[in-house]
């Protein structure tokens, strides 16, 4: 299952690189790449989610070791090929022999959501759990919140194409998303900082709590150390 991109909370990373450098462009071709990506979306060949999912399907070592623009370019190239607008031979005509076109893990069938573009199930202030497990494929719910309980802070303003469909070049019903706030200690019990993480999640990724769970979650949030002390 391609999940190398799902990095939130992953260990083993060191100092943030290039902190002194805010300029984001080195060379003009980087703009060309962005233009080509956006033109394909504009012309309806693929959605942005399909491009993201192509990047997610790059081999793990490639994803980890190659440069940002290499990942992006590989995803943009692959999404054009999978959309059928060009083929590899078209590219080869413009490439030196030794330049390879990166391959990706084949795309699985997509999956639909259970939300509706009109109805909205959850209200601000409500506590919800992120469903776990979630289907394989293009899922815009980071691993670090799956199975966790958070509080709805607001509902998104627009219904969006569901990632499990749009990422797989399939049609489906759009859904609203919700900004869900999680206590950091609920995500990583050893975290040294007590603040929060807020994630923007499609309705289908969320489920209601039972009454008992809701009460427990409320108590936990008021006294985050109480439950841990009770366990010891």
């Amino acid at each position: 299952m391609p999940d190398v991109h799902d990095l939130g909370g992953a260990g083993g990373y060191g100092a943030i690189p290039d902190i002194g450098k805010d300029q984001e462009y080195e060379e003009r071709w980087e703009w060309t790449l962005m233009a080509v990506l956006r033109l394909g979306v504009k012309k309806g060949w693929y959605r942005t989610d399909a491009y993201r999912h192509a990047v997610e399907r790059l081999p793990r070592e490639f994803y980890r070791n190659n440069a940002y623009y290499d990942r992006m370019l590989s995803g943009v190239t692959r999404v054009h090929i999978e959309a059928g607008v060009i083929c590899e031979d078209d590219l080869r005509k413009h490439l030196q022999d030794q330049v390879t076109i990166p391959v990706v893990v084949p795309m699985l069938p997509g999956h639909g959501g259970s939300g509706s573009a009109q109805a909205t199930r959850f209200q601000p202030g409500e506590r919800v759990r992120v469903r776990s497990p979630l289907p394989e494929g293009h899922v815009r719910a980071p691993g670090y919140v799956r199975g966790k309980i958070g509080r709805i802070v607001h509902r998104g303003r627009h219904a969006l194409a569901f990632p499990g469909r749009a990422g797989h070049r399939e049609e489906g019903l759009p859904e609203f998303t919700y900004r869900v706030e999680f206590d950091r200690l609920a995500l990583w019990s050893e975290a040294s900082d007590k603040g929060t993480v807020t994630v923007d999640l499609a309705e289908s990724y969320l489920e209601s709590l039972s009454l008992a769970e809701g009460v427990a979650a409320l108590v936990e949030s008021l006294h985050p150390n109480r439950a841990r002390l009770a366990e010891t």
Partner: protein
Amino acid sequence: MGCLAMTSEEKESLVHFNHEKERTLALRDALLARGLHTQPEVDAMEKGFESWTPDNGAALVARAWCDSSFRERLLDNTLATAKDVVHPVPFGGWDAVALENTAKVHNVLVCTLCSCTIKSLIGQPPGWYKSLAYRARLVREPRAVLREFGLELDPDVSIKVWDITAETGYMVIPRRPAGTEGWSERELASIVTKKCLIGVALPDVTAGVRDEPVSQTEREASNA
């Protein structure tokens, strides 16, 4: 190439080393050759990116600092309110939400799954924002990450990390620093950087670009 001998930081610092330019131009040229795009279309799209800079977000912050009713409207509906200040509004289909820092709350942004940013207000994301290390570490140990940026927050300030996972981007409204009393909006905007809008820095009063002082003659002329 010696990739294995490099540290992960060194690898992340190397921007291009796998024929990226050639492969990008090959993709463009393949699309042009098939008549799927024209060069003017590509040029126009590239040109459109020029207006996507942090100056847009900075202008919104400066106005919010000066005008409390604008600030309320900006917090309530960022996209609609931004149109008062940013012309044209180049939002590319995304929604935007402004997040206000307070004495007790500091907001900071990341996209752990890829590198999403509200580019029309913040500009293109810098390399550090897109790095695997930032994506991995900010959600879990934000205080330590901010310290690497030189930002040490008081222990009683709560850090809210916002992970951009759907088509809504955020921009941070930092607290207005002391020492800016009487500044114009343009002067205030000059201290709101991309790093401030993402939440890894606070505005630096000493970096402010002050307006040219008006001469006595000009002042009299404008008062006449």
